[in-house]
């Protein structure tokens, strides 16, 4: 099976059945949880301080649940209504928005202490949405520019994603840099085909490394 983002746009791929299936699958849940904990680690938030976080492509709230457990408050955006409906049924505490991240955000400057995104960024590169659309670079530019502005200085945004080539990583990082982000790519288990995980760690300002 090819990856979902090569089959159909996200709001189509994650219809009602697929959304439920994804959320109930124990293995998906575990992988999603592991990646969320790793993303949180890479966010490097000040310890014991509740943060206000943005979950980009929050889906049915699997990551959000973990953010809550870790004492944080969050808001999430997703383009798949079925996923958001499952999130509502699951009684999670984050605010949920139906949003196409390729259209950009309207959050005021400095709104969030950080952002995480699990298995979403590749959707901006591959399948177009079913909405009339412009090119991936345009969509990435709007996304990173408005995200950069929505984050506090200093802070971080951490994305786990599935690039299919180094060119894709190159494209994404260069657009993120133009939008004002520092940072770069972290690869976990680089030599394992199965366990390999790519994280894009973007910094606003110094990325908050000096925070206590």
């Amino acid at each position, binding site marked *: 099976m090819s990856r979902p983002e090569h089959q159909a746009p996200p709001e189509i791929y994650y219809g009602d059945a697929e959304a439920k299936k994804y959320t109930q699958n124990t293995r998906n849940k575990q992988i999603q949880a592991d990646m969320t904990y790793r993303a949180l680690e890479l966010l490097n938030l000040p310890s014991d301080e509740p943060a*206000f976080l943005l979950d980009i492509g929050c889906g049915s709230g699997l990551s959000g649940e973990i953010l809550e457990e870790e004492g944080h*408050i969050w808001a999430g955006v997703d383009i798949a209504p079925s996923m958001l409906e499952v999130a509502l049924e699951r009684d999670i505490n984050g605010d949920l928005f*139906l949003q*196409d991240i390729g*259209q950009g955000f*309207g959050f*005021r400057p400095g*709104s969030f202490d950080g952002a995480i995104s699990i298995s979403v960024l590749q959707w901006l590169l591959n399948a177009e949405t079913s*909405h009339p659309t412009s090119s991936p670079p345009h969509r990435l530019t709007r996304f990173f520019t*408005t995200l950069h502005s929505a984050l506090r200085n200093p802070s971080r945004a951490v994305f786990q994603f599935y690039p299919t080539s180094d060119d894709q990583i190159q494209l994404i990082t260069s657009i993120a840099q133009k939008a004002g982000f520092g940072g770069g790519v972290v690869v976990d288990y680089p030599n394992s085909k199965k366990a390999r995980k790519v994280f894009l760690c973007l910094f606003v300002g110094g990325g908050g490394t000096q925070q206590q």
Partner: protein
Amino acid sequence: MVRLITHNLLACHVKGCTTNNFPLIFRDVEVELQETEFNPDFIRNMLSRLEWTALINAAKQVGDTSLPPEQPDMMDDELLQKLHHVLMEINVTDGAMVCQNCNHIYPISNGIPNMLLAEHEIG
């Protein structure tokens, strides 16, 4: 759902809509109250990010007038509690948020605000 904490950070993101695009005005809203744990550190942490006047007006639109019209210099525990309630416990589940500049309507139905733009509204 939209809580006032998030509403207070949200401006209109329609192409070219850059002035007077905050705050979005609540229209025909239905609200649900949901108790959440009081976390004074979090509320304190959010204070510098809030636009007080926008918050007071939004609270009024959803039927809450418990906060003082001017942001007090000192936040005692009682005030933080009230602020917690307004920011975190009032969930707007249905209705709309309307931009006072370009009149774009962001509908909220079954707890989910629709932030999708039409092709001509994308920057």
